[in-house]
């Protein structure tokens, strides 16, 4: 029912907007134009500078060359992107499962909290560039070491934010449910998990920005396909333009994952934000 009402309301908003199309476009232009113009200016300056100073392509390729490299390697890139996304998805899924699992263990038992927390923090202080090659040595060139690297760099913010989120439930609401004779599971389901959702999403959004980078790093150390492999090969061939292409694609993928998480958040945490 709520969903339906929201859809109708949303439609009403769109409908209103379409009545003043010109005004909406103008407002949009005012928001988008400044950063767009700045980026365009910087790119233009970069292009001109590379030309004037005759900087060699292997040192700093001109934007036009990067675009050309992107178009040239598009057929190869799609395969690498697919491989990276697969590793990211499985690794991040593992991080979600492990993160939520650990968070609930920590929530249930103060003893486990004291035992686990230092280990979790320690796991984040180990340099991943040292751990990743060891994982490859241990588990070979297959999927597993890469998935583990992604999970390792992303699970921590999920655990910490879920633990804190579960603790953030309102005291009066907890008392009310206890007075209704609700058990641990009921309080968790009716109050603490929904109350934790905004913080959980904060953790997931932080984690997801590391996820693609984690996958690329793991592939760079040892794999047969993926953006990391593409970067390693391009570096060996002094194809700096292709390295730039990989960098842009990586950040584009990360932005897309982040944006999808935000959309999911707005949908699931429907009670926050603007009430019109």
């Amino acid at each position, binding site marked *: *029912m*709520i969903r339906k*009402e929201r859809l109708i309301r949303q439609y009403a908003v769109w409908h209103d907007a379409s009545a003043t199309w010109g005004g909406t476009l103008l407002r949009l232009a005012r928001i988008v134009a400044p950063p767009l113009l700045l980026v365009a200016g910087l790119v233009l300056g970069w292009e001109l500078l590379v030309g004037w100073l005759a900087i060699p392509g292997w040192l700093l390729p001109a934007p036009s060359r990067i675009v050309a490299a992107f178009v040239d390697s598009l057929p190869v890139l799609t395969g690498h992107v697919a491989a990276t996304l697969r590793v990211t998805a499985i690794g991040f899924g593992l991080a979600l499962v492990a993160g939520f699992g650990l968070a609930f263990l920590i929530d249930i038992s103060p003893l486990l909290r004291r035992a686990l927390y230092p280990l979790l923090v320690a796991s984040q202080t180990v340099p991943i560039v040292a751990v990743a090659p060891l994982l490859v040595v241990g588990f070979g060139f297959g999927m597993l070491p890469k998935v583990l690297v992604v999970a390792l760099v992303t699970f921590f913010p999920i655990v910490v934010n879920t633990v804190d989120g579960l603790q953030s439930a*309102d005291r*009066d*609401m907890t*008392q*009310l*449910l*206890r*007075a*209704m*004779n*609700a058990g641990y599971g*009921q309080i968790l389901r*009716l*109050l603490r998990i*929904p109350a934790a959702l905004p913080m959980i999403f904060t953790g997931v959004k932080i984690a997801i920005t590391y996820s693609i980078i984690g996958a690329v790093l793991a592939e760079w150390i040892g794999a047969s396909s993926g953006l990391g492999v593409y970067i390693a090969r391009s570096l060996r061939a002094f194809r700096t333009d292709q390295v730039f292409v990989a960098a842009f694609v990586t950040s584009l993928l990360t932005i897309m994952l982040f944006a999808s998480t935000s959309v999911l958040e707005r949908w699931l945490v*429907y*009670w*926050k934000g603007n*009430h019109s």
Partner: protein
Amino acid sequence: MSVIEVDAVSKSYPTPDGALDALEQVSLIARSGEFVSVIGPSGCGKSTLFNIIAGLEEPSAGCVRIDDVEVTDRRGRVAYMPQRDALLPWRNVLDNAVLATVVQRGDVRAARREAEALLGDFGLEGFGEALPATLSGGMRQRVALLRTVLWRRPIMLLDEPFGALDALTRAQLQQWLLGLWSRLDHTILMVTHDVDEALLLSDRVYVLTPRPGRVALELALDLPRPRTYNIIASAAFLRYKTHLLRALGQIM
């Protein structure tokens, strides 16, 4: 219709500098269909008393009985309305109203129908699907009260139900509660720090002393029912008010 009896309840909390006494030998009773208020300055242990009655805290001594059955430490026996509305922000009005039925794994669909039928009485007509954040303070408080009524317990505890509202809204809700209660025949125990509110609504008033909370005065009110807000200007009302304020003045 039920009787609730608090029998010589004491509560002390251990602190580094020795025990802190919150309640000392508090005894009070609310008979079937009675509206009883507990009034006292802040720090008189009113909330501790309610937590003990609701089964959320254990008394250091004494016991709580409902219809002569001991219910000390048992939860879910009385309907309880906390000071702030404590509505779950992700549940709409109806879903909040039927929360007790959800927790007790009862027939939620029947409870929803019942809640829907009561929306009008609670001044919430057309707001069944609204989220709490979209409601005014007075409306949220009425949803909390509807949730308490639908808890389906013959005894209701109200912890300063209108404390957070502005004076006008409070007067409106007090009058509305008078009308509602006369139709519901619940036994109500209300904590308040507002003398007018206690006199307007109650059959009996207990005055508690500041820490440790003790019953300083029990005052039976012989005011006609049904009451309206106009009663606060009557001679009898003012006499009781003077009496209560004097008692409160002496203990402070």
